[in-house]
């Protein structure tokens, strides 16, 4: 007796479509389905604790960089400076002109060690404790630091080739927890021209 389907109509022989083939058509059709180019979505949920602490008018820096890992923010970014990707050594990273760089970092050690690390990069003589009195005091991120300058061939480090005719200006400060460094390097003439800009940048630096 033939199997009966809804409506009492019997399906008889002569049909060429085999069962397995018919079954495979379904997934084929489903796989071909794409969502339309315009859709209406009406889903909501109540506010939760996950929505606390959201900041209105957050800058891209606030949005995309972890304030714990990158605690500093630039209040002033001088004209012509370009923001570059930050990393664990360059918590704020900018470039300018033809090879000029500005990096804000936090490191360990003491003031003298960090200053002399910079001096080594320019093969300049080391500073001694008694030389501190001769250095200009600069206020940065709520603490006092010292202004450092060096000129000559910049070793650069990190696998870079040494470059001649370079200059370094910057600030090294100890806030009691870490050593804060603001370092500008690049071609001597470009760096010298950017000194007022760097001063303005340092004044604008703040914690996020």
């Amino acid at each position, binding site marked *: 007796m033939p199997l009966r389907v809804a409506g009492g109509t019997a399906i008889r022989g002569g049909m060429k479509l085999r069962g397995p083939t*018919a079954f495979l058509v379904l997934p084929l059709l489903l796989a071909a389905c794409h969502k339309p180019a315009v859709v209406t979505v009406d889903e909501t949920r109540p506010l939760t604790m996950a929505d606390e602490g959201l900041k209105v008018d957050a800058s891209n820096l606030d949005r995309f960089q972890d304030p714990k890992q990158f605690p500093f923010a630039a209040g002033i970014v001088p004209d012509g400076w370009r923001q570059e990707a930050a990393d664990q050594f360059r918590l704020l990273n900018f470039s300018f002109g033809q090879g000029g760089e500005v990096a804000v970092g936090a490191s360990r050690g003491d003031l003298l060690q960090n200053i002399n690390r910079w001096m080594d990069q320019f093969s300049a003589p080391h500073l001694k404790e008694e030389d501190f009195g001769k250095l200009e005091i600069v206020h940065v991120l709520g603490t006092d630091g010292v202004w450092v300058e060096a000129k000559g061939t910049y070793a650069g480090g990190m696998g870079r080739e040494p470059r001649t005719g370079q200059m370094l200006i910057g600030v090294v400060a100890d806030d009691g927890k870490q050593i804060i460094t603001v370092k500008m390097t690049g071609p001597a003439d470009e760096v010298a021209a950017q000194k007022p800009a760097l001063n303005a940048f340092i004044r604008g630096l703040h914690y996020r």
Partner: protein
Amino acid sequence: MRPQPSIPLRILNFFSSVGLATALLLILMVETWLATLEQVRHGLFDTLEKYFNMKAWYVLPDAAIMGDTFSGKFLPPLPGGYWVCLLLALNILLGGIIRMRKGWKNTGILLAHIGIVVLMAGGAVSQLFEERGVMSLLKGQTADYAQSLTETTVEVIEAHDGKPTGAVHFVTDQYYRDCVDGRTRVVKVPGLPFDLEFAGYVRNADPSPVSKERLKGEPVVDGWFLADIKVEKEEESNHPGIHVKLKPGNGSGDSTIALLTTAAFQPLTYHLGDRTFLIRMTKRVWPTPFKVRLDSAKSKFFPNTNRPRSFDSNITRIDHDAETQHFIEMNAPMRYAGMTFYQRQMAARNEGGDGDAAFSQFEVVRNPSDKWPKYSILITGAGLLGHFIFKLATFILGRRSKRALP
């Protein structure tokens, strides 16, 4: 001459045959084996999607599981695991229940088949309706939400006086995950005065300031771009991102393009007229109808290893004003209000050392078929036990009656 069965009957015979059941079980066994090997190379999430997603109606197993020399090659195709399971369920339903000879002698086997169908139906319900997230708590911390590890949403919250207010509108990633290779989609959200046009989905995004070294033609928005970085094998480690164009309704005003990613720490702020909206991409938030506070957590490890022996947490469930203490440990979850809280992970004070933990993580599951596997095992077990008892009794009685013969 025996008449040829009709086509529908032949189809029914095919789908209810023992041969089909055997073939499907063999395919499932092979697929499970291949998927187990493949997930080592491609990660669990991708492998499950490849082998067992509803949209995967066929699978091309990666031949590299046999060695690096086969990298880039594939093994012969197999039918998608989801469809194999569906066919198997249909096969058992037709052959093992509907068409099976009914009678008290077969009651046990019938029950066992029903149990297996319940198990497979539970799997289907779970795949379609289950909500799963994690709740992470520091000691003393309270939370009223869990978050998905892999599913993302784009959320829009209106802010008044700098604070989120009202309901959170959200768009699940099924509406933008396919917005790649130039494909865009406009999502209209009732109640919002603007539409969202999604484009350029990135599975693992690193929001970065523009840098010549890293920029490879990605759209730049306000000096930042979403770098398309290597996709991690563990899907939960990826931070998806998307480019969204905010289009004021009725063509009033200019569109704004923005970058959204789960890697962001703060939302995008969008001002439209005198209204302010916060827009963000986040791992999907599942609100819980009660709060949970972590009171204490303890971890124990097998000696000199990082293998956990036990994790347990003391929590307080706060449902309106009623506070209830609960103890959760591995294999002893808390079930309440249709949700199940399983102990998932915790941070030990010392790595590999026993002691108090400062952090505990719970897997929060809302699954309508949560207990179906248990029911299935009970039904199947009862059926098989009944059948074995029946067979044993038949055997013993049969021997006695043979002995009784002269």
